[in-house]
């Protein structure tokens, strides 16, 4: 059987062996939890607590009136010591609630299981998902309840669980699929119920045979759910590529998956949905892969949201001496950090990748030799080389003509370029400049 795949893409080394066989272990709760009020795409939350307040675990401590937003919750019980800026992976300081841990882990009274969860209506379920503060945990952190509320005229035919985990190094989703397959299926069924989708897919790359087996077992007897085995290729787990591969549909340029009747959820997000609906748990912890040759003991850990990255790193034996780069996320799309001080793990932290001078190179940028490899690997068929040269000359209109705005920023073009041209970075620049120009024209 030929495996399902998409056009373009690259084959970076997996680098997953350091952690893929390691069961998820709970990380120590932080001494002071730093809960950013903005851990999602959309409106930041306003704090619901004040300095000096006692808070309990699972208590909602920040919320927003905006629709595209998600509340945040205390991941420990204790006392609010300050509300101040902390660092974020994006490099922009954000407001955060600092909670001194009393190590009692006293649950807040709002955290109650829903014994009748199977009889809840779609709207009730959606409300639970919203109140639990669930966001896309693959890294994009788009509020899940918004995804689950497609426009009334758009019928959802498929819910796709993204278990591709195509980013090298990361194994958080892999472990989630191995250790909690039933919960993933439960979360998928709930999502299907909310949007009234008749069919569900769980998509996994063929380099994770054990996860495929675990989920095939978990979906046994579910007639409308299928485990789809995908060819291992980056970016197999990119939303638009996944939809094309599994349904043959293409999300129209500038549109959302709902436009073609699809909804994609990360595997970890499905578990969060299941936990919220059945146990009443808000999203206050997540699986994080701490890996790379720059860390002494790579691991998969279940980390409370708000745990400083430095404390997590410490529990993995600390950095090695030749550490050169700390990345939040994977090596292809993750965000390099200038340091880890005051930087907490958030809902979107899928990995803490530590690279050494062996992996981190600073390459001289050479002229484009027009080899066309960036065109071959581009999964959305745009022209990275021409956008790159346009940006070099400041010609952003021309960059737009070569479809810069359709870039999914997967990084394949920069990865493959023999001239070591930072194409993805240039395209990002073009997107910013084009957007700014359009905003100014309005």
């Amino acid at each position, binding site marked *: 059987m030929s495996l399902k795949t998409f056009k373009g893409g*690259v084959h*970076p080394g997996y680098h997953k062996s350091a952690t893929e066989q390691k069961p998820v272990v709970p990380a120590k709760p932080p001494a002071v939890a730093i809960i950013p009020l903005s851990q999602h795409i959309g409106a930041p939350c306003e704090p619901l607590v004040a300095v000096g307040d006692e808070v309990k675990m699972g208590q909602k401590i920040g919320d927003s009136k905006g629709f595209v937003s998600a509340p945040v919750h205390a991941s420990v019980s204790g006392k609010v010591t300050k509300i101040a800026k902390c660092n974020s992976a994006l490099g922009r300081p954000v407001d955060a609630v600092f909670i001194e841990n009393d190590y009692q882990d006293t649950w807040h009274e709002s955290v109650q299981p829903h014994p009748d969860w199977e009889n809840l209506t779609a709207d009730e379920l959606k409300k639970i998902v919203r109140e639990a503060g669930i966001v896309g945990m693959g890294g994009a952190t788009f509020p899940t309840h918004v995804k689950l509320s497609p426009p009334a005229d758009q019928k959802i035919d498929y819910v796709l669980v993204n278990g591709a985990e195509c980013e*090298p190094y990361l194994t958080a989703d892999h472990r989630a699929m191995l250790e909690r397959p039933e919960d993933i299926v439960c979360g998928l069924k709930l999502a299907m119920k909310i949007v009234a989708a008749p069919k569900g897919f769980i998509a996994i790359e063929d380099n994770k045979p054990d996860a495929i087996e675990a989920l095939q077992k978990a979906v046994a007897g579910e007639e409308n759910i299928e485990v789809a085995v995908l060819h291992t290729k980056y970016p197999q787990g990119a939303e*638009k590529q996944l939809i*094309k591969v599994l349904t043959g549909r*293409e*999300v*129209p*340029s*500038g*549109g959302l998956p709902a436009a073609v009747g699809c909804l994609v959820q990360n595997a970890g997000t499905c578990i969060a949905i299941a936990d919220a609906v059945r146990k009443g748990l808000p999203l206050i912890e997540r699986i994080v892969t701490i890996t790379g040759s720059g860390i002494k003991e790579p691991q998969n850990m279940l980390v409370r949201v708000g745990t400083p990255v430095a404390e997590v790193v410490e529990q993995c034996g600390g950095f090695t001496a030749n*550490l*050169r*780069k*700390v*990345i939040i996320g994977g*090596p*292809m*799309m*993750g965000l*390099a*950090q*200038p*340091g*880890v*001080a005051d930087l907490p793990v958030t809902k979107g932290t899928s990995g803490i*990748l530590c690279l050494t001078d062996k*992996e*981190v*190179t*600073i*390459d001289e940028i*050479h*002229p*484009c*030799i*027009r*080899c*066309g*490899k960036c*065109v*071959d690997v581009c*999964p*959305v*068929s*745009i*022209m990275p*080389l*021409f956008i790159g040269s346009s940006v070099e000359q400041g010609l952003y209109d021309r960059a737009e003509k070569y*479809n810069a705005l*359709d870039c999914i920023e997967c990084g394949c073009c*920069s*990865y*493959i370029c*023999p*001239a*070591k041209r930072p194409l*993805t*970075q240039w395209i*990002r620049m073009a997107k910013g400049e084009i957007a700014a120009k359009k905003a100014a024209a309005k």
Partner: protein
Amino acid sequence: MENKLIVSSSPHIKSPESIKSVMSDVLVALFPAVLAAVIFFGLPALITILVCTLAAMLTEAIILRNKNIFGDGSAAVTGVILALTLPPNPPWWLCVVGSVAAITIGKHVFGGIGNNIFNPALVGRALLLVSWAGHMTNWLTPVELTATATPLASSSHPGFFNLFVGAVPGSLGETSALALLLGAAWLFYKGHISWRIPCTFLAAVFVMGSLLDGGFSLSQGLFHVLAGGVMLGAFFMATDMVTSPVTPRGQLIFGLGCGVMTMLVRLYGAYPEGVTFAILLMNALVPLIDNMTLPRKYGEVAK
């Protein structure tokens, strides 16, 4: 620790491939053809190839004020390819003039690697061809090395086996289809060339050769594919990254155009061989072809 961290835009890992590694792969791919040239035409062939390559590398090193004479390897590739388009025993100064012209007029006046419009080796060859036509058509038989004409200009057919292995008169590198195919297989394997340009090039030559060279004859089509510089051109010159289209459809058009132009020159032109001018002409059209054949982007909505 903290102040040593590098912050850069993603992706944070890169493929090990570099311009130098690509050029080195091309040199490896040219080796069978070089070997065949030396086997069939002996020491003079080796000297020709060495002089061309060294002259090209030196010219580039001087222009770039680069102490490392190999540089990124692109000049060496130009030198070897130019040598392979020359007759077996040209005067040494002809090699030097050709290489210097290839690197300067063909490449650096346009801004160096990546910016040249025309294939540098072919610019060098074209200059030599129009300036020293006598030297450039001084053909020898293989092994015995006596003066003769190439199969394209002669009335006797050398036999397909000889054409395929290369035991025929001609330029150093264009005679052995076998050696060229071996090298091309390596480039395919390494992913540096796609089938699109060579296959459409050869197909156009085959079809036009079968139909238009004295009535319908498939063997005449095959003759045109194997004889002269078509194989060398199709696999090593038309596929030159810098001077060929980057879009998949553009590569098909480019290959077809090269084939058609080659045959037009061969059948109706003043020269017996047209590969050089066909490719140079198509090189000029590359920006146009690229922009007319932009791929359909994912999720493209009809306007």
